[in-house]
């Protein structure tokens, strides 16, 4: 079958568009790291204490404690300490430096009790957080109910697989292909196809 010039031109154009698309897509791979703008840190005392609590809730290793210490330092240094109990905050710092995380958490939370109790209901993107809770783990061991659910789910899987097998098509693709023959090449001469082969 002769290949028309328009077809070849179209294929080239298709190839060019596809290659350009790929290049655009992977272009970030070749750019130098361009991190976001330096974030502007808050100076609100109770928020800084909450940030310290957030670090401790996320990471109780030395790194997490170090980040929390930085935030408590900032909270002690800021002018805006409204509703913050500085005495408790200083005790919390001492506890943190001694590696006593649970005690530090309790003191930090206690130090902002007044500040968070004065908060208005959250609007917009405010967190509404008054107490920074620790993560709740997904599972702490299988209960009797869990075992019932597990066995029931397993039975559903078995039933589903059995039914899928029972309802399988009479012929698989290879059998159909052997019986019906191989697929033809695209019918470029067919009425509906000629219009779609733009190349």
């Amino acid at each position: 079958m002769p290949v028309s010039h328009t077809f070849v031109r179209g294929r080239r154009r298709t190839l060019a568009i596809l290659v350009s698309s790929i290049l655009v897509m992977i272009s970030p791979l070749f750019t130098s790291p361009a991190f976001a703008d330096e974030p502007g840190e808050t100076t609100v005392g109770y928020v800084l204490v909450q940030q310290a609590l957030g670090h401790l809730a996320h990471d109780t290793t030395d790194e997490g404690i170090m980040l929390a210490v930085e935030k408590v330092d900032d909270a002690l240094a800021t002018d805006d300490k409204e509703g913050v109990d500085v005495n408790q905050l200083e005790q919390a710092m001492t506890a943190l430096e001694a590696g006593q995380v649970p005690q530090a958490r309790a003191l930090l939370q206690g130090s902002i009790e007044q500040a968070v109790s004065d908060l208005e209901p959250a609007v917009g993107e405010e967190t509404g957080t008054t107490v920074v809770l620790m993560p709740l783990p997904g599972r702490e061991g299988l209960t009797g109910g869990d075992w019932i659910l597990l066995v029931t789910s397993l039975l559903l899987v078995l039933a589903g697989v059995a039914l899928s097998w029972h309802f399988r098509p009479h012929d698989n693709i290879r059998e159909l292909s052997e019986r019906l023959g191989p697929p033809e090449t695209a019918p470029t001469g067919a009425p509906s196809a000629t219009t779609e082969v733009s190349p």
Partner: protein
Amino acid sequence: MTAQHVADPVPTDRPQSRTRRALDAIDERLGIKALEYPVPEHANNLAWSLGGITAVALAILIVTGVILVQFYSPTPETANESVRRIVTDVWAGRFVRSLHFWAGQAMYVTALLHMLRVVLTGSYKRPREANWLIGVAMFGLVTLGLFTGTVLKWDQEGFEALGHNIEIGNLLGGVGLWFSADFADRVPILVRLYGAHVVVVPGLILMLAILHGLLVKKHRISPHPALPTDSSGEQASAAEPTEPFTHHLRRIAAFGLTLLGLLGILSVLLPQGVGPTPVAGIEVTKPPWNFWWIFTVENWVGLKGILYGEVIFFGLLVILPFVDRSPERLWRRRPIAMGFTAAFVLVMIALTVLVNAAPAVQHLEG
């Protein structure tokens, strides 16, 4: 075998059972037998049933979601606590919540696999381009559902995800106004995202799913590229055996049962916990794995990377049927399209994996 596997008519000379008469009475009023139209036999393969399996995942999401909204409180002060109560105090709450989470993951994965199958078999080609676009839109909504669901937990991970959402809204200017907190600054944005998660997103998915199904009916099941087609090349050959569409639904139900069981096992063995209550101004979490690829881009080029990445990702999917207009459907005869697809998939996988090599970078304003 060339016989058409269509249900045999019930013999009229044999007395009918009460069940049969009851079913006939129901059918007379609801027209259920209209679903028994013939479809090509290859439609009952697993690969051709992925769209149906995605619909099953959606059904599980809706049922579990209806249960969860009875106990979820969508205000910033109470949201995280209410999720904890669902997990610890509500009977089977941990299981239902985890089932909802895993069904969302299943929907994302099966939708992706369905799209990949459509690409590999050229099923997006004429006359099915519009249905491909509807599918792409539905996938976008699934992603949005995952995103809003992540925020609704109202833990540190969800709050940081929201922060990105707001920043992107700000980047978009007027177009992104709805996504910004300024749109309704006296209403917690969590409440608005809750509305989007339980009404707007699933409502749009359902509407588009109905349209998707109607267009599948109109254009008929796409031909298998390894089998002969009719003269137009757009439909399965008349020589291919058919089965009633109800058999297709029956097999999807069987696959769906398997999926439900698998999700149940995952929900018991890998239930979802809840992160700490959110704190503004720190960035200490990674997004769910579905967004890792875009997180890598963001680490490299900043917040704008999210915008560029998403535009490129969905832009490529949208233009696909208009760029690849060759009528060929067999992958061996489509080297350019297949090469492009392979590159696309590899880049996505690479970006996803690279998230673990990315340094922790603060993207949001403190």
